[in-house]
């Protein structure tokens, strides 16, 4: 599989680095005004279109370096291959998740669909760390833009014992059922008590999380029992 790129003379790796810079400096502009940003110069236009298909190579390399010993070298073609593989991975999982949505006549691909698809396609080992990650994200969502979110996250990494995690995961994930609010509302309560300093009331946080979940998730999640707090 080769990459066709009209920007002759530029190595893909160079384009990747430059795009990483471009994306870094005008991130939100690029997202919302993608057409405008792409149209500014011909060079930018072809870079944005091509690289939309892949994760920024700088990010890919950084993750690889976490695994490799310091003296290890990575060839450019290896970097690009892995970069391509990541996109293929996303497409692969999304395709399966989307099929499930269509079978169940839902329009929105949810986090649960993604996790379900990963498990079905053999990536079981990822489910546990991903579930934990998603829980932490949802907690932070409940207290957007405030230092308490960070405090809560630090607290959570201590307070969430293996037992609590498994209880939350088991309650949330039995048979790949959607996440139950009860699971992590109970968790939030524990964290607040142990933290002590968290001023935001539990019901405020719970409402915020429920509001976010309701806003994001569509009809498929009407089965959530919002009274389950």
């Amino acid at each position, binding site marked *: 599989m080769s990459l066709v790129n009209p920007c002759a003379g530029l190595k893909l790796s160079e384009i990747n680095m430059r795009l990483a810079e471009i994306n870094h400096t005008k991130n939100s502009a690029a997202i919302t005004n993608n057409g405008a940003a792409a149209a500014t110069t011909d060079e930018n236009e072809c870079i944005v279109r091509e690289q939309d298909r892949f994760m920024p190579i700088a990010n*890919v390399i950084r993750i690889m370096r976490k695994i490799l010993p310091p003296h290890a070298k990575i060839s450019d073609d290896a970097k690009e291959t892995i970069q391509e593989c990541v996109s293929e991975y996303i497409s692969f999982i999304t395709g399966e998740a989307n099929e499930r949505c269509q079978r169940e006549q839902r329009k929105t691909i949810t986090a649960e669909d993604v996790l379900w698809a990963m498990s079905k396609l053999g990536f079981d080992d990822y489910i546990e760390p991903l579930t934990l990650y998603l829980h932490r994200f949802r907690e932070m969502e409940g207290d957007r833009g405030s230092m308490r979110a960070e405090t809560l996250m630090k607290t959570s990494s201590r307070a969430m014992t293996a037992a609590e995690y498994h209880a939350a995961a088991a309650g949330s994930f039995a048979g790949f059922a959607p996440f139950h609010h009860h699971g992590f509302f109970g968790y939030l309560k524990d964290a607040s008590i142990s933290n002590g300093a968290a001023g935001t009331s539990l019901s405020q946080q719970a409402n915020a999380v429920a509001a976010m979940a309701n806003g994001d998730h569509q009809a498929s999640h009407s089965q959530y029992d919002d009274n389950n707090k």
Partner: protein
Amino acid sequence: MRQAGKYSGFMMCGGIAGRTGPHSLPLARIKKIMKKSGEDVKMISGEAPIVFSKACELFIEELTRRSWATTLQGKRRTLHKDDVASAIVATDIFDFLVSMVSETASHSEDGTVPEEEETVGSS
């Protein structure tokens, strides 16, 4: 593009983004790739790209680990595309990637794989 606003609003304006940690992959890019995976991909919840950002990290880590094992077997210190290909072929769950590295298989039979081969417009 309202979907983009849901997470780019609070994720990208520096508020939560910094607190999810330095490891996050760009959510907008993930979402673009998800949308391109099929004609009929309609809507994507705000959390799905979040899950993918972590999942891709795990994926890269696993692929790198396995590739590096092949590098070590060859007593080398440079991770090549061939090593990635070997890791893919050797791992069941990476079967979906086999077609992406099948070119490499034919190259390695020559015994020589120039490092800087993958320039724009070649092959």
